[in-house]
């Protein structure tokens, strides 16, 4: 009934746990002491190890950990026309920064930013996979618009861009794609436009889609989201516990993803607490939903590697416990 998945970026360095150090190779590249090919090899090795960590922990759908991506938006800005890379800005309320893309011309799809890494991910494992890409509403919000005269045109072109990325991922063999939409709860007054943009991006695409929002409450925006032609809706239920009940309250024909473990604290949730939440989900009818994902609240890259692995394992232990209560009792 439950599938354990991860959201977004995973730690890119392993504190010596695996024989690759992407940080060091990138530092060497900056000093012109390593080649682009060596950086690429280190990225691929890092993806292999994040896949093996997820597999060892028992994650049900494996991701590439977005090892190549530092944030959800700039890789798209780098891959497609219409963007420049601007000044540094903080990534929500985290001590993490990214260079904000600036929209300087009409947004046009050039080549997929996500499909090649997905193909590589597929070559690393036989397990079920989860691809990911930024959703159209949050893509527009991550960027500084200096081209479009109105938000409607901006969102329409962001939606088409994301649609092409989804199609490229479908062509690459993706079954599921997680769409990052962290801004949904931060702009309740824009929810109609957000829903329209997501609909334009996903309607009729050949992949199952999970729209996932984090760092915010969906209290004022959840109702229109249920009408989206997506397979599942998910939210951060750790820092915004009200999202748990909001997600439970939707129609039974929609899948859900519950972000149960706080991805921004090293405090490890007690196993019993996660177990109780899973039992509540069963009581709420999780068995009737098309899918019930459980996950950390956001990207585990906010944590040191060791803590990220602990959170991953805590999640999968709880799921296993619910799946096999008799075996656990023995």
């Amino acid at each position, binding site marked *: 009934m439950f599938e354990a998945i991860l959201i977004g970026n995973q730690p890119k360095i392993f504190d010596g746990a695996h024989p690759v150090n992407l940080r060091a190779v*990138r530092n060497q590249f*900056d000093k012109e002491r390593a080649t682009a090919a060596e950086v690429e090899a280190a990225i691929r090795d890092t993806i292999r190890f994040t896949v093996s960590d997820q597999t060892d922990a028992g994650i049900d759908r494996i991701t590439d950990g977005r090892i190549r991506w530092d944030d959800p938006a700039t890789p798209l800005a780098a891959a497609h026309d219409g963007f420049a890379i601007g000044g540094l800005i903080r990534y929500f309320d985290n001590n*993490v920064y990214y260079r904000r893309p600036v929209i300087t011309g009409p947004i046009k799809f050039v080549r997929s930013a996500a499909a090649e890494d997905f193909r590589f991910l597929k070559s690393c494992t036989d397990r079920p996979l989860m691809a990911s890409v930024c959703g159209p509403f949050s893509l527009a919000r991550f960027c500084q618009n200096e081209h479009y005269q109105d938000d409607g045109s901006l969102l329409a072109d962001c939606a088409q861009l994301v649609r092409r990325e989804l199609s490229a991922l479908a062509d690459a063999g993706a079954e599921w794609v997680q769409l990052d939409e962290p801004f949904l709860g931060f702009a309740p007054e824009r929810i109609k436009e957000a829903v329209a943009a997501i609909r334009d991006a996903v309607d009729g695409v050949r992949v199952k889609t999970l729209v996932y929002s984090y760092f915010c409450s969906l209290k004022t925006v959840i109702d229109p989201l249920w009408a989206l032609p997506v397979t599942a809706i998910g939210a951060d239920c750790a820092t915004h516990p009200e999202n748990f009940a909001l997600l439970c309250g939707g129609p039974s024909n929609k899948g859900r993803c519950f972000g149960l473990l706080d991805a921004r604290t090293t405090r490890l949730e007690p196993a019993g607490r996660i177990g109780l939440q899973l039992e509540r989900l069963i009581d709420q009818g999780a068995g009737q939903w098309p899918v019930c994902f459980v996950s950390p609240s956001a990207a585990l890259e906010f944590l*040191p*590697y060791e*803590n990220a692995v602990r959170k991953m394992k805590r999640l999968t232990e709880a799921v296993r416990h619910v799946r096999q209560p008799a075996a656990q009792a023995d």
Partner: protein
Amino acid sequence: MLETTSVGSFPKPPYLTKARVEHQRGRIGDTELVDLERRATSEWIRAQEQIGIDILVHGEMERGDMTTYFAEQLEGYGVSGLVRSYGNRYYRKPIIESALVRNKPMSVAAFEFAQSLTSRPVKGMLTGPYTMCDWSFDEHYATRRDAVLALAHIIHEEVADLEAAGARYIQIDEPAISTRPDEIDLAIAAMAIVTDGIKATTISHICYGDFRTIYPRILSLPVDMLDLEFANSHFNNLDIFRTPRFTKKISVGVLDVHSHVLESKEQVKEGIRRSLEVFSPEQVWFDPDCGLKTRTVDEAKDKLRVLVEAVQDIKREMRLQ
């Protein structure tokens, strides 16, 4: 009027970077490392004097990360594994593991040494309680408020010690303050504890956030001056401070610290002119957007040189010199 200063950190010279690694590996002792930190501090004090900076900083040669440095000196803190902050840059994020206690001054010796090298004022430099909490993992306190206020009392003790050591300017950095607008009152309450009874000029540096969300409430932060970044956003955020009128003193960041590209004097002068459309000459200082530690030593010096030359030109234009 129109003084020049720096935000805090300068790049470490290669000999010090190497020595810090050697120290971590146990190949050199504390005394040898401190000697090299003092040598680097002396070089930066001399460089700032030669360039013509008015209010100096000691350059933070003894610090790695602005949170971790203080956390390592406080009882109750541990330090985590590496966490990414930007691009390929990582830091060891502190973890609050038990009740926090300050057993000794943390920044006074570095201030006293730097001030002993120059007749110009050197700023005392600290990280504020809100940012210390926000950039730490907390496994001890029941609420964020509890952690922030505990840190505020500790940092007040440090500020009082810096003042007693002769610091005329004390900067309490709060770069995280704009990240949760709903907690601005908590940050203000904490700063009120930090600056309570302090006579020195107090400054708070805030950067890379959305100032729109905290203005004008941030004017209630109990410090004399705010130090904000503007060059990174091409001065577009100046408009935020037109209405209502900005009532504190302000240090305006006119150099992009995250670019290797050296600004031209004309670019910096244009930024200064635009700032003076919003702030009065009596209330404004100029500096880089943030600490220059991510630049090379030469890049940092070149940027400071352009800053001073641009300000001098503007002073001449305004007949202030």
